[in-house]
């Protein structure tokens, strides 16, 4: 057990170490600049230092995780994306297209139609509550900003591949969340601890590969902590700031003020322990999703005559994109990458939330979990993409600089506001809530991984670092934050998918058994 703590300390210190020399170098550069009389404001100097530090880390990690793997003559796919595609396709085939055949059952289970009437199943929350918790982590700026960036850089065709990635991702989510339930730990006080770190170590341990399992679990936990600081935190602050400064111009030059407000708001929950705020934020998210999707549908209806053209552009763009977009493979990479960043399928994070659900059948919670990528990607991301395509925002020269600097949330805000006058204010509120609830949920993921490595007593140190990253998100450039977030979150897929592949036989057996019971009437609806 302690080996994982030591390994984690080493990896974390290496990651932090890459920041340190750069910060010193940046300070030296700034000092020279100041001496030469060219002195930017103190805040700008700090912003630049942090930005440079992120760049250094991104370069180092990116060269490994996004290593270009040749797949055809002259064509390469980044290692992380290839791994995700391979994993999602494998799980879909291995589980006999559970993403399609399990869909109806998943909805019934989430609606409580199969709940144990006695309600004595072990666990903390209902299926619906677990799904909402997992969704509040995934439905965030990835759905609004990430998708806008994907469509702008990959063209309308990226939408198609995002939907494909979402469908395949449902199977990956099913397998990992089933495992999350299967290998969770229930403590004496009834609290449940689960997630990829548990199934990797315990599950592979069961198969006689305990050492490999422990290494993968530590690797996963470290990256998840990184992801909770980046994609689940700094990226959310950064991109929501983008959208909000469309309505509050003061923040455009004073982003740190927003960072400070967010830091305080997250701080009162994770350090101050004010549960009510987290509860409200989490419960409002489904309503905000509804408002967002509804607004997108209104825009689509308003542009009804454009819909056939938009679909043609999406299909055409998916299979015959122009060379500038990098060919079919280039568009596919963008689509898969952004879908995975948004729905986290194959990444392993949601298994932490789903392991808390009350059920006696791990497979059942896996089914519920497969609704996550459906709602997140196939519904919400597609809505954003359709709006960006139909309004032509993706190739509007007016927005070229937003695309260049990856300010996706601002792009979506302008695209939607151009159709629904004043919608940018509603979007600003939605974006704020999405960002906030995603950060709260990711702080839970990160804290669980931190506790896995360093014990429950160390939680406070994690929370303090988390708050530092909330603030950093407001002062780092969008490009660096997005890249860093990608590296961490997509990086989690390496240990996770490897472990899940090895454990997929167990899931398949459990699934077959459950499915047989369901079909022969042994498992019945209770409502």
């Amino acid at each position, binding site marked *: 057990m302690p080996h994982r703590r030591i390994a984690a300390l080493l990896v974390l210190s290496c990651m932090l170490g890459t920041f340190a020399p750069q910060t010193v170098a940046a300070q030296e550069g700034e000092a020279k600049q100041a001496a030469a009389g060219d002195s930017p404001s103190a805040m700008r100097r700090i912003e630049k230092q942090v930005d440079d530090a992120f760049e250094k880390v991104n370069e180092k990690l990116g060269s490994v995780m996004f290593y270009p793997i040749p797949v055809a003559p002259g064509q390469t796919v980044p290692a992380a994306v290839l791994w995700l595609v391979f994993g999602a396709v494998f799980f879909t085939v291995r589980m006999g297209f559970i993403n399609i055949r399990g869909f109806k059952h998943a909805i019934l289970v989430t609606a409580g139609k199969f709940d144990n009437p006695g309600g004595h199943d072990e666990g903390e929350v*209902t299926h619906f509550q677990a799904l909402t*918790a997992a969704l509040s982590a995934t439905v965030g700026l990835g759905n609004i900003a990430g998708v806008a960036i994907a469509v702008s850089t990959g063209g309308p065709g990226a939408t198609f591949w995002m939907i494909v990635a979402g469908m395949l991702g449902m199977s990956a989510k099913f397998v990992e969340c089933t495992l999350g339930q299967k290998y969770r730990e229930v403590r*004496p006080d009834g609290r449940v601890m689960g997630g990829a770190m548990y199934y990797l170590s315990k599950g592979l341990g069961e198969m006689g590969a305990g050492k490999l399992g422990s290494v993968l679990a530590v690797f996963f936990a470290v990256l998840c902590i990184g992801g909770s600081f980046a994609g689940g935190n700094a990226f959310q602050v950064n991109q929501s700031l983008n959208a909000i400064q469309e309505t509050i111009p003061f923040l455009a030059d004073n982003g740190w003020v927003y960072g400070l407000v967010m830091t305080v708001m997250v701080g009162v929950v*994770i350090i*101050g322990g004010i549960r009510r705020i987290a509860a409200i934020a989490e419960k409002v998210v489904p309503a905000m999703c509804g408002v967002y999707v509804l607004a997108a549908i209104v825009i689509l209806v308003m542009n009804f005559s454009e819909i056939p053209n938009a679909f043609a552009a999406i299909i055409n763009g998916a299979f015959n994109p122009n060379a500038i977009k990098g060919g079919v493979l280039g568009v596919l990479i963008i689509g898969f990458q952004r879908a995975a960043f948004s729905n986290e399928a194959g990444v392993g994070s949601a298994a932490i939330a789903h392991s808390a659900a009350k059920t006696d059948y791990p497979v059942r919670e896996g089914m519920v979990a497969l609704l996550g990528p459906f709602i997140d990607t196939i519904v919400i991301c597609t809505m954003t993409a359709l709006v960006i395509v139909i309004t032509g925002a993706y190739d509007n020269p007016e927005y070229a600089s937003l695309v260049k600097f990856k300010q996706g949330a601002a792009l979506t805000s302008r695209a939607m506001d151009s159709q629904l006058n004043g919608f940018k204010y509603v979007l600003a509120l939605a974006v704020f809530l999405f960002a906030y609830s995603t950060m709260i949920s990711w702080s*839970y993921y990160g*804290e669980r991984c931190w506790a896995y490595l360093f014990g429950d007593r160390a*939680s406070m140190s994690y929370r303090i670092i988390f708050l530092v990253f909330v603030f950093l998100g407001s002062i780092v450039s969008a490009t660096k934050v997005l890249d860093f977030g990608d590296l961490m979150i997509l990086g989690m897929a390496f240990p996770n998918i490897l472990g899940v592949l090895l454990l997929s036989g167990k899931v398949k057996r459990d699934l077959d058994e459950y499915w047989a019971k369901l079909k022969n009437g042994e498992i019945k609806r209770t409502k």
Partner: protein
Amino acid sequence: MSWLPRKKIVVPVDFSGESVHAISVAIEMAGQPADVQLVHVLFPLDAVSPGVVWGEVTDEKREAAVREEFDKLIATNGLEGVTVEVRFGNPGLEVAEAAEDSGAELIVVPSHGYHGVKRFVLGSVAERIIRHAACSVLVLRRSDAE
């Protein structure tokens, strides 16, 4: 014959095998189970996990679950007569405080018995108890200690 004449002994319990061993040692030393008090310390709840956010996990429910575990532990190991307490906070500090509150003469700590880095990482609850306890502390050595 008891080792301590009619004195109370506190045993921190995490429901592991080592805890059961420590309880037996404490009962033997005290002479009767009634003089042994078992303490389980729970970390305060966070504000962000789904169970807490949805109000499904509360300190009351956690305490009830732990008391149920205590009942099982007592029944399966024949420990009838011991008293139990559930506290919230930092384990090391709370155990020391529980001993002080009940006027205990001794705390018997089930130890993991690790050395080197393992001790550094895992041993700190026992060390905290020693640092904060107003009474004597007996730290047991695990039979399979490295």
